[in-house]
């Protein structure tokens, strides 16, 4: 079996012991030191936990940033002098977030949440954790590359974090890093050192994503256990597979864009720069000598990644939600092949819609109409998925676990946020709606909060497999209801603000006659945001407390689930299975079949069984 051989050659046989000493207890580790087990681990399960916890640190930091700039937006006239003592003069002056700090916060919040939390934290965690366990492999195709993937991410994290502490502040030109703000060192305080650190961190992040993605694809296609044909894969794996494909094909293009940007910043080229007058002091004043570039070029390269990126964020959540809905409805997923097909359709369309982010950049209107068509086509696979989720729930024997609540919450958010996507996909409506709070509301609900819900669902569902203990359910329900209601209260009103034309990224709306009416609404949003953020602390407490003190898992398969991860020991060692990897005889969704409540994938086909997959 290639599975065993790869692990042996890569880890020098230190871990495949389960195969050779079948009666040996799985917790027997040969020469695992603290460093090799917890730090430079090559065990996919430990790497998954490393991604998860690093992602959680970033989620807290990114969330805290949003609370800070919501303070400014909700209470533009108040003075929070205590913040000045905590954060210092760059961030807070006279009790108010400084304009420079405001833009730095918005930029870093976006970058961190999109890339570090919802890409690395979400697919990094669950691709690592679930792929080998659910396809029946002892580890990834290359455990070493997998370890490198995490450490590149860690390095990127350290550099991004350090940019917050430089004197001139972090980059503050928006998470999209459009030139010239990103290309000219003098364009804003954050465009100098802050941007240097931002771009280095992002380049390392791309390397991390590529190393991870290559591994995920190779593992899914090459390391499946006997009998695990592609059409028997759980939908989580299909979703993670398309996620990895999207990442591997789109991140390199972003890297191309960054390389040209680095040349513009440091070597005096003019890929993105032209016709710029610099107002400053000293020798840099006057017409910029860099001529002949095109700033729109960067937008094309950026959004060629940027749009697939939103599906990189969303697809893992979709996959996990499909699995969790089926398990907890005690019913097979409705329309398995349609689910796979719609994932495939979304993955293809993801590459063909990037210019809908650029409708108002002077794009040829004819070209725009083609992108409108392709964008609206995404509604078809999305609607198929929603239909199948709802029909999976329909007349199910539903168990409302916290994971299930978050999964259902995901479906709700995906519908709400998806419908506004149909508005924004129209180039004509976009003339009015672009760069308003309507866009903020749309993408936060459909991509940000929905994927966060997918991530929470995944954590609640697979926590027993990760740590051998349960999370506290009461805290889980509180966490769900406050976050669910809070998310709608925060983002729903933003639709109205956006329709009224309130632009995004402004520092203070109270000085505009047209937006003064929203003062009370903005206060309300900020207050809810603070409450929702505080609730996440509850979740953090639950998470870390339960690692050591949670109720212990006592059976291998606590959810009566069909997938292979529940055939491993309660606390699986490196190598996952003691003895042979189970052989797969059926798909993952044989729930309520032939009078049986559930039939795990490794149970052989009974000759009297009705039709099977």
């Amino acid at each position: 079996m290639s599975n065993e051989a790869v692990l042996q050659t890569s880890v020098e046989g230190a871990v495949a012991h389960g195969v050779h000493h079948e009666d040996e207890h799985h917790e027997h580790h040969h020469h695992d030191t603290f460093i090799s087990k917890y730090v430079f681990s090559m065990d996919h399960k430990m790497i998954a936990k490393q991604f998860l916890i690093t992602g959680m640190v970033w989620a807290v930091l990114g969330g805290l940033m949003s609370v800070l700039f919501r303070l400014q937006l909700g209470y533009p006239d108040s003075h929070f002098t205590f913040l000045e003592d905590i954060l210092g003069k760059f961030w807070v002056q006279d009790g108010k977030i400084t304009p420079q700090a405001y833009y730095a916060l918005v930029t870093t919040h976006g970058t961190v949440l999109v890339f570090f939390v919802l890409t690395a934290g979400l697919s990094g965690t669950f691709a690592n954790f679930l792929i080998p366990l659910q396809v029946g492999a002892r580890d990834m195709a290359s455990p070493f590359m997998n370890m490198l993937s995490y450490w590149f991410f860690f390095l990127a994290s350290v550099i991004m974090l350090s940019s917050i502490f430089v004197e001139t502040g972090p980059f503050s030109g928006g998470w999209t890093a459009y030139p010239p703000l990103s290309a000219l060192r003098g364009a804003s305080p954050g465009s100098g050192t802050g941007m240097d650190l931002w771009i280095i961190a992002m380049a390392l992040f791309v390397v991390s994503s590529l190393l991870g993605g290559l591994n995920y694809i190779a593992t899914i296609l090459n390391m499946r256990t006997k009998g695990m044909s592609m059409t028997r894969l759980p939908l989580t794996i299909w979703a993670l597979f398309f996620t990895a494909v999207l990442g591997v094909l789109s991140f390199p293009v972003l890297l191309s864009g960054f390389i040209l940007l680095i040349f513009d910043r440091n070597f005096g080229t003019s890929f993105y720069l032209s016709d710029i007058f610099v107002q400053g002091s000293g020798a840099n004043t006057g017409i910029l000598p860099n001529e002949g570039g095109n700033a729109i070029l960067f937008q094309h390269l950026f959004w060629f990644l940027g749009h697939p990126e939103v599906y990189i964020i969303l697809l893992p959540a979709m996959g996990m939600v499909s699995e969790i809905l089926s398990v907890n409805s005690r019913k097979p997923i409705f329309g398995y092949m349609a689910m796979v097909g719609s994932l495939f359709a979304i993955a293809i369309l993801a590459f063909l819609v990037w210019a809908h982010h650029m409708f108002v950049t002077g794009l040829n209107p004819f070209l725009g109409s083609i992108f409108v068509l392709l964008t609206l086509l995404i509604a078809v696979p999305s609607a198929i998925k929603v239909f199948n989720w709802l029909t999976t729930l329909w007349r199910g024997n539903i168990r409302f676990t916290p994971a299930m609540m978050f999964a259902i919450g995901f479906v709700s958010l995906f519908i709400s946020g998806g419908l506004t996507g149909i508005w924004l996909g129209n180039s004509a409506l976009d003339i009015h709606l672009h760069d308003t709070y309507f866009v903020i509301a749309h993408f936060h609900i459909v991509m940000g909060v929905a994927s966060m819900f997918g991530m929470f669902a995944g954590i609640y569902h697979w926590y027993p497999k990760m740590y051998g203990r349960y999370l506290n359910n009461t805290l889980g329900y509180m966490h769900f209801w406050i976050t669910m209601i809070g998310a709608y209260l925060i983002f729903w009103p933003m639709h109205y603000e956006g329709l009224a034309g309130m632009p995004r990224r402004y520092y203070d709306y109270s000085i505009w006659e047209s937006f003064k009416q929203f003062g009370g609404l903005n206060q309300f949003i900020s207050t809810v945001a603070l409450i929702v953020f505080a609730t996440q602390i509850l979740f953090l407490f639950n998470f870390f407390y339960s690692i050591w003190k949670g109720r212990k898992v006592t059976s291998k398969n606590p959810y009566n689930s069909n997938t292979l991860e529940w055939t491993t020991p309660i606390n699986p060692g490196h190598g996952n299975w003691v003895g042979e990897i189970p052989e797969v005889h059926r798909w993952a969704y044989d729930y309520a079949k032939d009078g049986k409540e559930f039939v795990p994938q490794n149970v052989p086909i009974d000759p009297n069984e009705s039709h099977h997959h």
Partner: protein
Amino acid sequence: MAAVGSPERGRMHPHKFILWVGIGSIIMMFAGLTSAYIVRRNQANWLEFSLPAVFWYSTVVILFSSLTMHLALKAFKAREMPRYRLLVTITAGLGVLFAGLQVIGFLYLGGHGVQLTGQGSNPAASFILVITGLHALHVLGGVVALLVIFIRAYSSKVKSYNVSRIEIVGTYWHFVDILWVYLFIFFNLI
């Protein structure tokens, strides 16, 4: 161990598969860059100039290195280790020579009034530098990989005849060769 690549179910060695997906990834990077080149070329203020003649020599060098790489793999499979070591050395040397010739090409352009970077540079020339330079870095990456398997061939106490590692490097080497041929044709025609 050599049989690892072709188990009962006829699946490719996972590491080889990783390389193929990685090649797809590198193709996307250069596709991004050459698309940007086309987009920019169709706009105003584009400098027309001919490529330095030395790029023809570097093309011959890298094509020849693919041949030596191929022969090295054959020698390895035939267990002719001295011949294998010689051919790997030649291949790596040709790789370095290729990168050197590209740099000479850049210097030639700079010396003939086509500025690649800095004030007065035109994106047309800067693109040549970035795309060709990035490709040369990929060739040098291949040289490093060759050196690693080369050192292994000398130093490893256990005689390892695992062919998949050198096959992976070989495939990568042929890929960067084809990639350059594509780029060279692209620059000449577009």
